[in-house]
């Protein structure tokens, strides 16, 4: 059994410097994983079928960059609309009015309960269900009649599908944030005579942000990748633009690598932005809690121990 022994023999009043417990299995696991990683890396370099020269040629290709831009635009638009819908439906869901709260519940149930891919194709084919869309009063006069085929472009179908789906998830996130604020906060605000809307804006939502922001960041990152589903609507976003290219030259793998590199880069940037925003919204968190700083601290402690042992 490996246990730490304490060297106190020489000076019992000295600070304790225990010899750490030996962990041989940790070293074995490290060696196995490093070995596998080395194998993977060598194959990536030596296997000619990766065709890295084609990856390099298309990485900055104009249509690929346009596709990346379109992906970023869809992510941004879908998230902005999704958050707006989410706040709206979260407030409706917590309303005392049963019709409002059940409508919101039904919306959330439907859009979370059906696959996004199905929803996208559904919106794209809306004109089969409603050939014309009329603007007017219910059972009253009609002001304008629009042809659904021209109104629902692939772009509109894509935005509708992504935003309505995201709205359902955001509604639950926002509601969780509102519910997380202790009841005592509402009572304190009431006892001061604050109105309901003032309480929501000044007391509840600022405190709910801590709970709302981390999953919203995760959803934004997920949306960046999920938006690749709109490639089925023939919108030349990142995935579809590389599909167009490999449809011509049959270099499927290198071009999927091109798309993956851009997706990874974009998600990495978003992740670091998310970490910064989260840190700003929780000022009482340990500032040295990031992985890098923990690693540096551990290494420094280890070096100090090694020096002591000599």
């Amino acid at each position, binding site marked *: 059994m490996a246990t730490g022994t304490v060297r106190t023999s020489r000076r019992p009043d000295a600070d304790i410097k225990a010899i750490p417990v030996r962990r041989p299995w940790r070293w074995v696991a490290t060696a196995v994983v490093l070995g596998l990683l080395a194998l993977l890396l060598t194959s990536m370099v030596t296997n000619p079928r990766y065709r890295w020269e084609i990856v390099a040629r298309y990485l900055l290709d104009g249509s690929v960059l346009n596709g990346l831009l379109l992906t970023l635009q869809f992510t941004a638009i879908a998230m902005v609309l999704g958050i707006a819908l989410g706040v709206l439906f979260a407030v409706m869901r917590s309303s005392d009015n049963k019709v409002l709260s059940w409508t919101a519940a039904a919306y959330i149930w439907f859009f979370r309960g059906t696959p996004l891919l199905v929803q996208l194709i559904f919106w794209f084919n809306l004109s089969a269900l409603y050939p014309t869309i009329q603007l007017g009063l219910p059972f009253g006069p009609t002001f304008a009649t629009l042809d659904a085929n021209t109104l629902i472009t692939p772009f509109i179908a894509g935005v509708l599908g992504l935003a309505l789906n995201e709205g359902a998830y955001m509604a639950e996130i926002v509601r969780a944030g509102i519910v997380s604020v202790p009841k005592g906060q509402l009572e*304190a605000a009431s006892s001061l005579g604050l109105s309901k809307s003032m309480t929501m804006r000044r007391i509840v939502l600022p405190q709910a942000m801590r709970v709302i922001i981390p999953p919203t960041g995760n959803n934004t990152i997920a949306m960046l990748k999920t938006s690749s589903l709109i490639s089925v609507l023939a919108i030349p976003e990142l995935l579809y633009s590389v599909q167009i290219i490999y449809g011509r030259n049959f270099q499927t793998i290198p071009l999927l690598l091109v798309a993956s590199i851009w997706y990874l880069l974009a998600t990495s940037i978003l992740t670091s932005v998310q970490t910064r925003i989260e840190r700003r919204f929780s000022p009482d968190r340990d500032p040295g809690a990031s992985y890098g700083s923990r690693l540096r601290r551990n290494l420094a402690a280890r070096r100090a121990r090694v020096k002591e042992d000599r």
Partner: protein
Amino acid sequence: MSALVRAEGVHKHFGRNHVLKGIDLSLDEGQVMCLVGPSGSGKSTFLRCVNHLETINRGRLWVDGELIGYRQSGEALHELNDKEVCRQRARIGMVFQSFNLFPHFTALENVVLGPCLVKKESKAAATAHAEELLRRVGLAEKLHSYPAKMSGGQQQRVAIARALAMRPRLMLFDEPTSALDPELVGEVLDVMRGLAREGMTMIVVTHEMAFAREVGDTLVFMDDGVVVESGDPREVLARPRHLRTQAFLSKVL
């Protein structure tokens, strides 16, 4: 003369749980009433009814001659709308067991918030008043501290200043020292003692019998949703008339 607070036959149910079973009480301006009794006796619920945090199911409650939560026209009682309820609450200060300071605001911001948002006082006037109040509760050095950086006693004193900033006619205290470490109880009671001396009308739900004896003008003993006995605190504490009061006091004194 009419009492500042008057309750007549107040009943309160939570579902099938009958919490208040006909409370009759009255409190004159400038007086301090201490509510004591075992937990579950309804004393906190009664306090919460006084500023309409709970709606009452039967009876009537007046503060400063105004019916709380309702408007009577002939036989009919109309619920007050949100704005009218807010106006009534703004004149009644409340201090909670768990402080309930707003954690995203500093001590000063906590105190300034109500006057600025509800009474539409100017920022400068509200800040000056808030600084004076915080100085009075002994927190001149903590103006810009966040609640998380303060002890429980300090937080509760900020909460008292926050309630006072609305210049209330009446202060309600719901077990203000029950969540505090024993050595911090004194600083909060000192502030309340000072308020009573200045003539603030107060209803205090408390387990601090020494405070009730010293500061209270009336002591009300409640059990199982009714007022068992009430009177001069020294008299009630020294010579309780009812068996239930005797049993309770023998456990806490």
